[in-house]
């Protein structure tokens, strides 16, 4: 029964992924020859689509990470999923399952330390996630080659298979639908948890739901930017958007744009310059952040111009 469902979903996903790839190829054909050339390879097209999905989902989630001040938590979760990913790989289980399990256990461990010792939240977090990360590295070094370890840590977007692409598409779809249907819940919870509680929303459920969404996003981005740099894609787009927007929906659109532009442009440059894709994507994102920061309404460029005018 479950295998039938799985196979059905995989078939539908593959069909859609192929349509999306065709559409991307059609779009790219409009670009100048010199820019379009790398995308004549199927693996580059798959990498491009995966990067775009990651850019969109990270963009949306980064708004919550920035507004909820969860940057450290995002970093913690991204490191904490590693042992789960390694064990799932070893046992032939779905990677997502392992990631949720080890992310969840680490979160519980953080809570346990906080409640039962005098250690503060940031230390408890740092302690637990580095321990989990260390466990992951030990497991991986035992079962896989160092190339494989490098791929998990820093991403391997050029090696994305059709199967991974389909999983990424599904995970991205689930994350976006969750944000769409629980938009109000997440908004009230982020802005004023007391009000959320007073009008009958379960703040605990929303809290853990948002953490689950974050884990899902991180697992989705593993192949593309890797465990170590994924947190950058969960902070920079939202931080950039927060410089120039006064409403959450607009902030999300801007963050999505930053996410997609940095992941696609980063992919292109990484291919052209033959450098690590994850690192290049984060550098492009950071460059966008600096540019927007310079020209934002409170940035130095506009301030100079206003001073001249006055």
């Amino acid at each position, binding site marked *: 029964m479950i295998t039938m469902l799985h196979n059905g979903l995989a078939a539908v996903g593959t069909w859609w992924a192929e349509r999306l790839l065709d559409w991307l190829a059609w779009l790219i054909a409009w670009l100048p020859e010199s820019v379009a050339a790398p995308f004549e390879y199927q693996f580059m097209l798959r990498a491009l689509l995966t990067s775009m999905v990651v850019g969109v989902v990270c963009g949306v989630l980064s708004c919550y990470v920035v507004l909820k001040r969860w940057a450290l938590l995002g970093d913690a979760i991204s490191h904490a999923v590693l042992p789960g990913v390694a064990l799932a790989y070893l046992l032939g289980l779905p990677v997502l399952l392992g990631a949720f399990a080890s992310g969840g256990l680490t979160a519980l461990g953080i809570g346990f330390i906080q409640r039962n010792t005098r250690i503060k939240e940031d230390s408890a977090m740092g302690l637990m996630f580095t321990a989990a990360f260390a466990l992951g590295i030990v497991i991986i070094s035992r079962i896989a080659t160092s190339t494989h370890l490098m791929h998990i840590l820093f991403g391997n977007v050029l090696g994305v298979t059709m199967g991974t692409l389909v999983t990424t598409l599904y995970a991205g779809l689930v994350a976006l639908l969750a944000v769409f249907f629980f938009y109000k819940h997440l908004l009230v919870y982020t802005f004023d948890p007391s009000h959320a*509680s007073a009008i009958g929303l379960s703040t605990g459920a929303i809290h853990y739901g948002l953490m689950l969404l974050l884990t899902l996003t991180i697992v989705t981005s593993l192949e593309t930017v890797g465990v170590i740099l994924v947190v950058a894609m969960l902070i920079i787009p939202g931080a950039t958007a927060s410089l120039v927007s006064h409403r959450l929906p607009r902030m999300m659109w801007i963050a999505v744009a930053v996410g997609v532009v940095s992941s696609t442009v980063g992919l292109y440059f990484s291919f052209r310059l033959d450098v690590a894709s994850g690192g290049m994507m984060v550098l492009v994102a950071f460059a966008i952040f600096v540019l927007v920061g310079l020209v934002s309404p409170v940035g130095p460029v506009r301030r100079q111009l206003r001073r001249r005018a006055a």
Partner: protein
Amino acid sequence: MNQPVTVPLAIEARGVAADYSGVIALDQVDLQLPSGRFIAVIGPNGAGKSTLLKLLTGLKKPLRGGLRVCGMAIRAARRANAVAYVPQETDIDWTFPITVQDVVLSGRYGRSRQAGGWRYWLPPRFIGASHRALTQQAMEAVQIAGLAHRPIGALSGGQKKRVFIARSIAQEAELLLLDEPLAGVDRHSEQIIIDYLRAFVGRGKSVLMVTHDLPTVRDCADRVVLVSRTIAGVGTPDEMLAPEALEKGYHLIERGPAQP
């Protein structure tokens, strides 16, 4: 506490205690406050006033004891949208990208759930005309309709408070909890807020206001609750603002929680 039992109770607490990671913030809280009153909660800093409000909104679970608001258990009261909350200045991130209108509209989210239907699951822009109309009325009631599209951080202290009052109006609650609503508020805003609260109580609803502003307590409150790690006293403003009563309440905290 010799109120006849025929009056419905806005807040009823029996032996309530609350803690933060094992440190007791409130203990042995017994309260029976009738509805349709303007209740002021006073007490020194760190006395547990804000904790009391967190218990009433359900954000914090009591360590022990029973708590009821408007005749319902906390959970039921939350589902019924019976309790509205106006937060303290420091509890809100004022750089949050949200407009005045969107904050006030969030007062309708719980009502939208109660009304049922598919619209509840969509983002707020699809919430529907009736909720929007009530949001507009709520903003007009405290004179902030002209600021509807401003970001929340661009307002003055008094305007910010009025936004949250408007959110509670939109929620149509029975009991309104306010944490320091008059701190850092200009005269004009203070007048609007006090007038609204008086009218609200006049309609048989209840107000519970945490404040340090003793002159306002004397002018407005029907009842005063003195909190100092426990309930140090309940009475009329004249009784509770008498020097000896205040002395008792404000000194309890230095000696730690009351011994059983």
